[in-house]
């Protein structure tokens, strides 16, 4: 593996009485699009501000390109931050904003002009260089903020909730565009967000944080398919869960029996390493991995459970079913709407849920 771009070693930061970041260790590869995902108060923003140099760790060390940045102020760090609020200078034009960093580093005037133009091209803002930020739309301001940071070719580009202020459609477009730009410039991007879809779409790897701690790091697929904790499973996408006890372990699979299930039914799922018979466990299953059927046959699936439809919500590309498995247990199932002839289930009707054992994960406590 190439030399890491950023390394956090046992970094802690206290804000008053709360431990904002708790012994966080992370290694971020060069050229990687890395997202730190977490709810507010998870310590992700504090982590970003420590990388930028606005805050300094109480303990631990941060290395950028192999060098400790302890005590190095923001203006002497090879990183640039795209602010959540964009923080464009309202008294400077688009070109003036983009040129700011280059001017501060005393880049020759002719080079500045060329690089500003190049940055404008990259974010597709040609011809807007003489506008003031107030004359731009939200999406355009976002691009200026991005260009203003990228133009400096920092070792690491930091993004603080980069798409938070954009509306839904624009956000989806910008996710793809940000990823494209990142691949083109090949810089290390570290993005902080509470928006799980954003993190999954853009990132090579995602770190999930909660209350100052790192819960899991991995590719979007790992995080989504193999969450290692109930929090990660619940925070990334929607998941159905079932609390029970491991009944048997058979290699990589185990059977879980739960009080909430109808009597006689149990669930077979992927098993964590070292899980023991009798241990408390939670089965986690994604709503789109469940197949609905009117009959009880397994038909090649490993699991089948009876339920009753409580709600059927049609939302265009899919139908979202809310199913009651028992009085206390309610699951969601999403079925893509693939056209005429597809079987629909009306509220109140009985239905059977079927899925492959590998689609469900068992989290042992």
């Amino acid at each position, binding site marked *: 593996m190439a030399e890491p771009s950023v390394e956090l070693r046992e970094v802690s930061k206290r804000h008053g009485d709360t431990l904002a970041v708790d012994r966080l260790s992370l290694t971020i590869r060069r050229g990687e699009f890395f997202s730190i995902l977490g709810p507010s108060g998870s310590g992700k923003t504090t982590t970003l501000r420590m990388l930028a140099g606005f805050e300094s760790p109480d303990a631990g060390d941060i290395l950028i390109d192999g060098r400790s940045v302890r005590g190095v102020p*923001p203006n002497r760090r090879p990183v640039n931050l795209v602010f959540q609020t964009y923080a464009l200078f309202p008294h400077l034009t688009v070109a003036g904003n983009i040129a700011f960093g280059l*001017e501060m580093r005393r880049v020759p005037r002719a080079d500045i002009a060329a690089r500003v133009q190049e940055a404008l091209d990259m974010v597709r803002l040609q011809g807007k260089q003489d506008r003031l930020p107030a004359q731009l739309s939200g999406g355009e301001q976002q691009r200026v903020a991005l260009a203003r940071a990228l133009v400096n070719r920092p070792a690491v580009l930091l993004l603080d909730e980069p798409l938070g202020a954009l509306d839904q459609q624009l956000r989806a477009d910008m996710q793809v565009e940000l990823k494209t730009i990142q691949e083109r410039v090949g810089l290390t991007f570290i993005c902080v967000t509470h928006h799980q879809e954003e993190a999954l779409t853009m990132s090579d790897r995602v770190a999930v944080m909660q209350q100052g701690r790192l819960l899991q790091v991995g590719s979007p697929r790992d995080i989504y398919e193999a969450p290692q904790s109930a929090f990660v499973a619940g925070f990334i996408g929607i998941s159905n869960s079932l609390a029970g006890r491991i009944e048997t372990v058979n290699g990589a699979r185990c059977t879980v029996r739960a009080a909430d299930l109808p009597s006689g039914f149990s669930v077979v799922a992927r098993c964590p390493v070292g899980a023991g018979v009798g241990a408390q466990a939670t089965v986690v299953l994604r709503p789109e991995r469940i197949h609905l059927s009117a009959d009880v046959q397994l038909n090649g699936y490993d699991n089948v459970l009876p339920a009753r439809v409580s709600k059927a919500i049609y939302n265009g590309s899919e139908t979202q079913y809310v199913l009651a498995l028992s009085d206390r247990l309610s699951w969601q199932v999403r079925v893509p709407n693939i056209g005429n002839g597809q079987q629909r289930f009306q509220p109140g009707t009985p239905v059977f849920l079927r899925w492959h054992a590998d689609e469900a994960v068992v989290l042992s406590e």
Partner: protein
Amino acid sequence: MNSPTRPSDRSECSGEAPASRRPSRLLLPALVWLGLCLVLPLFLMLAISFASRGTYGGVVWTLTLANYANVVDPLYVRIFARSVGLATLTTLLCLALGFPIAYYIARLPPRLQGIWLLLVMIPFWTNFLVRTYAWIFILRAEGLLNTVLAGLGLIGSPVDVLYSETAIVIGLVYGYLPFMILPLYAAVERLPVALVEAAWDLYASRWAVFWRVIVPLTKPGLVAGAILVFIPSVGAFITPDLMGGARTMMIGNLIQHEFLVARDWPFGSAIGLVLMASVLLGVVTYLRAEGPGARPAAGG
């Protein structure tokens, strides 16, 4: 997303514009007050400034331009220049002292901001004359300053500060500093911290952050503070009278002297109007160049 609304679009849509241009009847009391107590006396002064002084004071209505011709007498020009110089120095010192204070207050938690602003305004609870006397007690030969300095063994003989231009500037800065701090505070408070951080993140030293971002974006406060300090300083009367002594007369003292001692109302009026006109001219020029209406400097 590509076409931002032009400013003109908005005014075309708004049907309220004509109504809001009509002066409200609520303004009437203020207009009457200003008319009777400001505009009318000004016209009186203007009339008197073209009259002549009677032998025993008083105003004789023989029209003359002599009063205005007298204003440019080197003696008075020197007093004018001294006034402008001292007021400029006062303004610059207030800026230098007031900016850090305003910035500090504006970045405090809201509850502490209130306390600090109160502290800034507390001097106004006491009469200005009384506070100026207090300064005399501090600065005079056997006053607090000299006692402390002598007590510390820093000086052998008392420093002679009182009754000098230095004393006037000290008094003026003391008196008008709050007028600088308050508008600056309001401007800094509106400046998003993220802009300062953005500049810092974009390789700007603290010095560059200040000159390239903080100063341009707090300019309305700077301009307002400078005007609020300069104008009363240039026409100051109590401070130079009590702290400046006989050798350092400012325009305010000259006008007072003409009206009350020399009993030359026409000349006093002429000086007063010239002062007003030059201050007005200066402020308008300044606002054109630096004020909120001025075009922002292009980037680069």
